[in-house]
């Protein structure tokens, strides 16, 4: 049984400019102890997908439908708010992008970290305090006994994000959803945190869904990568496979346009022409068609669905065109 199964999830928002299909028919499956990456540019729907899974998108305004959202076999679509509260921060934990706005500035770090333990596990304040000290030590915050009494503003960005991670891990969740956890941080701090996430996964067998726009971060961390564009997953495959043989024109173009530190040449940047899609006014066919170099006539009118590139392959793409083999060229 998969840890998390999402089938045909749709999250739409009705706006004055028209219906925005922020997430449009997404299937996602996460196995226990695995790491999956959800990669896409801003506005591709990756964060809305995450929030919908967690039941954090209010309806209305959103219109949500799905064939299934199952976590550990339990149906989440029709779950009551009370049940979702029992799961969030307990079995499913999350780390958000901005550690400044996701910690409560009026509560000490110690109080905030103890909250999930007291709420979900019914631990006493003293017992929770002991566990919080352990957690802070585990995430590498020096002098945890003293730091308990500090307020979030006394922490640096990296320390706040580590405190967020300690809080997320307090109840030893089966699934950790990290939404751009290192985007607001410097590279050296990012490296520390990704290393730490890797350790958590090895030690506790926590499955991690990493949402990021940075292909580099995903490359070093994930077993499997799903690429999102305009609310849909356009390609998903094991990490090695997707970098070796990107099969969707968008993935391929994206990989080519990212400057790499280990490039030798200084050739011109390869860019993807045009602009990201206007979500209120998507083309009738494939959303990437106006920017695609490989588009055929069919792409203008029909929207491709996500299908295996070969029989029994774990590599899926949503594209009518079979690109010539050849890595990122």
């Amino acid at each position: 049984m998969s840890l998390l199964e999402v089938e045909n999830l749709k999250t739409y928002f009705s706006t004055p400019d028209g219906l925005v299909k922020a997430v449009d028919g997404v299937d996602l499956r996460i196995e226990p102890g695995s790491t999956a990456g959800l990669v896409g540019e801003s506005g591709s729907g990756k964060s809305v997908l995450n929030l919908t899974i967690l039941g954090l998108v209010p309806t209305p305004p959103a219109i949500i439908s799905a064939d299934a959202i199952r976590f550990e076999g339990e149906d989440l679509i029709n779950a009551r708010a009370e049940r979702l509260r029992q799961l969030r921060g307990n079995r499913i934990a999350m780390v958000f992008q901005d550690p400044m706005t996701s910690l409560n500035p009026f509560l000490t770090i110690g109080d905030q970290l103890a909250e999930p333990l007291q709420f979900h596990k019914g631990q006493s304040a003293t017992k929770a305090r002991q566990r919080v000290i352990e957690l802070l030590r585990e995430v590498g915050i020096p002098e945890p006994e003293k730091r308990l009494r500090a307020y979030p503003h006394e922490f640096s960005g990296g320390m706040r994000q580590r405190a967020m991670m300690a809080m997320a891990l307090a109840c030893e969740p089966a699934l950790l959803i990290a939404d751009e956890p290192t985007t607001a941080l410097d590279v050296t701090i990012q490296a520390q945190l990704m290393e730490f996430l890797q350790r958590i996964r090895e030690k506790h067998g926590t499955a991690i869904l990493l949402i990021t726009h940075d292909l580099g971060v995903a490359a070093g961390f994930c077993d499997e990568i799903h690429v999102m564009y305009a609310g849909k997953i356009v390609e998903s495959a094991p990490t090695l496979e997707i970098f070796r043989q990107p099969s969707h024109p968008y993935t391929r173009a994206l990989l080519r346009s990212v400057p790499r530190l280990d490039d030798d040449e200084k050739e011109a940047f390869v860019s993807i022409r045009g602009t990201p899609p206007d979500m209120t006014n998507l083309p009738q066919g494939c959303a990437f068609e106006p920017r695609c170099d490989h588009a055929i006539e069919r792409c203008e009118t029909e929207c491709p669905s996500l299908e295996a590139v070969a029989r029994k392959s774990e590599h899926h793409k949503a594209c009518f065109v079979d690109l010539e083999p050849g890595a990122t060229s």
Partner: protein
Amino acid sequence: MTASLEQRPILRVRDLRVEFTNRGGLFEKPSVLRAVDGVSFDLHRGETLGLVGESGCGKSTTARAILRLLRASSGSAEIDLGTATEKPRWNDILQADRGELRGLRQHIQLVFQDPYASLNPRMTVGDIIGEPMAVYRLHGSRAARRRRVQELMEEVGLDPTFIRRYPHEFSGGQRQRIGIARALALDPRVIICDEPVSALDVSIQSQVLNLLVDLQKRRELSFVFIAHDLSVVKRVSHRVAVMYLGKIVELAPYDEIYRNPLHPYTRALLSAVPIPDPQVEARRQRILLSGDMPSLTSAIQGCPFASRCPEVEERCRTIAPELGEVTPGQSVSCLLRQ
């Protein structure tokens, strides 16, 4: 690339210091924050000098102090107004009086990070790009200015018929083009780009970077390119300066700094940059730094990086290193390498 090393400098920054004084509260002692702590570099003609470092290292403050958008506490920032064949005519921006400053700023312009916040939402694109020319009373009549604005729009890849549109009608990448056109309006010699692409999506970043590189070739512009993304800096820069705690710790040609970084901080920084290739990632050795950057208000006796340096020695905590050339073109500020 090597040719640029022999070239004449156009901008000369010496021992630039910016300090902010915190007056202190009721129970707080006043403290001095050294945002920029003795920065010196030359920018050559037609060159891009990358200025990299993590947040709080003073790279943006350096840029702002050079343009005198912030007051430097000491140091100089001189720009050469002579043509390529003339003798240099150095003018210190930091010492200039009001009238002189106005004249000097025509030659050194800034492109901002956030294309959403740096364009006035109530002005049309034509007015935004035309404003510098109006302020400097260039190109005479309104009609002539309008023609010039349209030329600039074309040069940066914007449709000139959009001249009456407002910034919100443009995408992020297009807005950054508007900001670039505005910086070009006075035909400057030097443009300081402060994180020009970090607010943009990856698929758009390369469009804007290509534009900057083209403009440089066409107009013989010199860029100071400030960014935290080392992969981007590597592609556009001829030389790279790495900053840490208000100081330049290493300055070298772009290929040297990536192939043979000398300062332990540069090494750690480079090893931390993720590479979008799982096979390469699996082979890489990361140098993990412990802790965070020390506070800028604390008085540091020895090397500012000593508290996090994996190679730290006893003397590093007491003797402050100076930036010095160790191989031709490559300077480093580290006791272990000099």
